[in-house]
């Protein structure tokens, strides 16, 4: 095991656990809503048995709500499945725009809990890079977590995948508080530095622009 892997080993497990805990929480909420709608349907059935009239439109609306929650759960579980499979290969070609959109979707609940909105600017064309899918998800999350702490509640963090002469990059922007960051919020720290080394990446903090730029190579070795 390389020095970098020793540093990130536990952090990778923590990241995997954090995402799964967030996903399970959201699935539980979906189940709770379906449960309440099923209960309400039972209540209506009892009312009908007692001779009360129930508006069929109300029942239609309930069916629609249940269907919406099933679709929501399906979306969450598809994301969970994709996330689980990101550890299958240590080197794979990915579309950076898709990875950024995926991580924003996966982090949405955690962002909501912090009172931060996430906005993804889709790239004008696919940005193909060959990388370690799980490690890139991990470093995106770490950059995003820091960006959300900097932005603070009520603010929006914008994520943009970009490519140019310097290679591919992910920009976390609208971080107006970046120049006033508390010394407690050290970034990047050991784990981020180890991830950056393993991915052949670099993190540039542009205080003036209120941006964190994660530069990525076209292909890892």
């Amino acid at each position, binding site marked *: 095991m390389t020095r970098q892997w020793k540093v990130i080993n536990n952090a990778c497990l923590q990241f995997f656990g954090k995402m799964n*805990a967030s996903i*399970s*929480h*959201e699935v*539980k*909420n979906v*189940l*709770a*809503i*379906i*449960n*309440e*709608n099923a*209960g*309400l349907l039972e*209540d209506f059935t009892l*009312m009908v048995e007692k001779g009360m009239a129930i508006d069929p439109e109300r029942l239609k609306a309930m069916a629609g*709500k249940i269907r919406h*929650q099933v679709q929501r759960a399906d979306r969450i579980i598809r994301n969970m499945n994709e996330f689980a499979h990101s550890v299958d290969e240590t080197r794979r070609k990915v579309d950076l725009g898709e990875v950024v959109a995926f991580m924003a979707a996966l982090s949405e609940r955690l962002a*909501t*809990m*912090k*009172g931060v909105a996430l906005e993804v600017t889709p790239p004008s064309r696919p940005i193909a890079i060959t990388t370690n899918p799980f490690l890139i998800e991990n470093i995106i999350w770490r950059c995003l977590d820091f960006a959300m702490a900097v932005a603070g*509640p009520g603010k929006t963090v914008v994520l943009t995948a970009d490519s140019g002469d310097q290679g591919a990059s992910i920009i976390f922007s609208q971080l107006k508080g970046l120049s006033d960051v508390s010394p407690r919020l050290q970034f990047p720290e050991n784990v981020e530095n180890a991830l950056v080394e393993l991915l052949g990446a670099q993190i540039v903090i542009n205080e003036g622009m209120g941006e964190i730029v994660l530069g990525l190579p076209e292909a890892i070795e």
Partner: protein
Amino acid sequence: MRVLLVDDEEELVATLAERLSFRGIDADWATSGEDALRKVETQTYDLAILDVRIPKMSGLKLKKILERKCPAMKFIFMTGHGSEEDFKTGSAEAGAKYYLVKPIDIEELIKKMNEIIQG
């Protein structure tokens, strides 16, 4: 009995409030800590049922503020996690007896509500 339900899942609290009202319980709901604090400015509740994890302001922090504003108010926590971490936090703050894991059984909830109101 007047109850305030607080959870960021609007559909959950709205439906639960309706079901409680069918059972003779006057239930109101809020989808954020700020919304809950606005409600208690104008209305009185005997009991608040709080999700442990609500955006911006946690359920535990909200409870502390509500306790100061409404000293007579009682509390029940609920969570979607059901994790040991949540359980420990929730039980320490609210007492394990008044702690429910989603999805919630409405009859169990009402039983707990009656227990806590009757002291």
